[in-house]
């Protein structure tokens, strides 16, 4: 991705419930919230487990592997974010843990994108205060 420094990428808002996720991203670790009581993974993070209503939860490292669930490629610059050069792609990835994340892609051309494409998570340090997850193609063979 090519960035226009005149329009810095927006920084994620952090709060009590989501701080663990973004702190994980900062140290290049994708973590998901898991209920300590019933083991349900959820994303986005939330204050209470929607299955068992427990407030006891923990941050569990993800294997970082998944498949593309859906994707878009932005072509019209005014519809897109001015800080990112068009065309750029955004993907929803279904992770092995059963939750989905939103990310941009690294080294995948728009015309290569396919639903079901195996990908793995990587990280891009964009600025001192901003690291974001990216996904790149994953060799299949290992699950």
């Amino acid at each position, binding site marked *: 991705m090519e960035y226009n420094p005149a329009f810095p990428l927006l920084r*994620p808002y952090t709060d009590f419930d989501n701080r663990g996720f973004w702190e994980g991203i900062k140290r290049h670790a994708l973590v998901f919230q898991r209920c300590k009581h019933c083991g349900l993974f959820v994303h*986005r993070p939330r204050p209470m487990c929607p299955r068992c209503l427990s407030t006891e939860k923990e941050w569990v490292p993800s294997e970082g592997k998944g498949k593309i669930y*859906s994707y878009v490629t932005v*072509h019209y610059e005014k519809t897109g974010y001015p800080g990112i050069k068009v065309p750029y792609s955004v993907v*929803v990835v279904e992770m092995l843990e059963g939750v989905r994340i939103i990310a941009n892609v690294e080294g995948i051309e728009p015309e290569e994108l396919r639903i079901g494409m195996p990908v793995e998570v990587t990280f891009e340090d964009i600025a001192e205060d901003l690291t974001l997850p990216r996904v790149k193609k994953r060799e299949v063979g290992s699950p």
Partner: protein
Amino acid sequence: MFDQYLARRYRTTTRPRKEDYLVRDNAAIVGIGATEFSRDSGRSEIQMACEAIKAAVEDAGLRMEDIDGMVRFAMDFTDEMHLISALGIPELSYFAECGYGGGASCATVMHAAAAVVTGMANYVVCYRTMNERSGRRYGHTPGVGFVKTTPSDHFGYIMPFGLTSAPIWVAMFATRYMYEYGVRPEQLGWVSVVFREHACRNPKAMFYGRPITLQDYLNSRMIVEPLRLYDCCVDTDGAVALIVTTAERAKDLKQRPAYILGATQGTATEGETMTSYYRPRITIIPESWYTAQELWRVTGVRPEDVDVVQFYDAFTCLVPMQLEEYGFCEPGEGSAFCEGGDRIRIGGELPCNTSGGHLSEAYIHGMNLIAEAVRQIRGTSTAQVPDVELSLVTGGLGVPTSAILLRK
């Protein structure tokens, strides 16, 4: 993961009794008013709201001081407090706001109807005013530079990735929808072509006199793959106002009342504003499905009884998706229903968006669709369906949503 979505469990056991639904047949839309629809109104949003409300009051045959209630969109930049000072309305006994963008459209009528049937007000105005073309365009990423951090947790997971405007948010659903059901672009294109045909019969439509062909659609430029320019609605400056009162009072007014058979809202778990990508399936729209189930429950009507529909058509793909969620088609069959256009155009089995819709008349956040649904009941549409008894309108989707069913 969340098995309740997969089963699409509907809580019939916990719903109120149908007989307790007081709105049914006890309220009506009795006045409609609008400004012109344009690319640059040249005046303030509050002035346009005043003009639309004045037109609606005159249309109903009321005096301005009869108005004692108002329901606004939470997203609107105007409010009832300033409006009544410009309109010469002495007091209001009922005012409320409805959230979630275009999901509020039919909800404003629902709240107004609830107010009049419970005796909290006599004549309630519902309105939306927006300089959405000359001002802040929803099809563009909003002004940036002054905000450094996303305004909420939700936006933190989308904005930093360039997932920053409505066309991009909806395109993510469209990709998956087209993949799962094998939808071809030309199937969506027919929605655009047919609604443009309808707009070409409506002199007030933004695209009056500008028909398009399927080839024009396919040639239109990619905005955000898979959505082309003609998949997207028309950014508009304008205002629309409606007046709701009781069925009893409606009898004495100037126009044929559009009786409110049902007005419902719905939201569903694991939702976000326009980016509910974490649900087990994203080719279904649980809010719209639930709103529809509620509407059919409280009215006792079946989809096949409906004569004409105004679907919330901010993007073409939302039309086949709603055909499925409201029960006009089986899941996955909505795009085939639209193909060729014959079933959704005037003369077809389910004429849709007869004023041209958001795609080709104007985008006033669903409120111009309600005005057209009222005209279909009155028999005054420029693309009138013969003998309309039941006229359906849906609210913005992919957000907590709403719907109303009007009857003659």
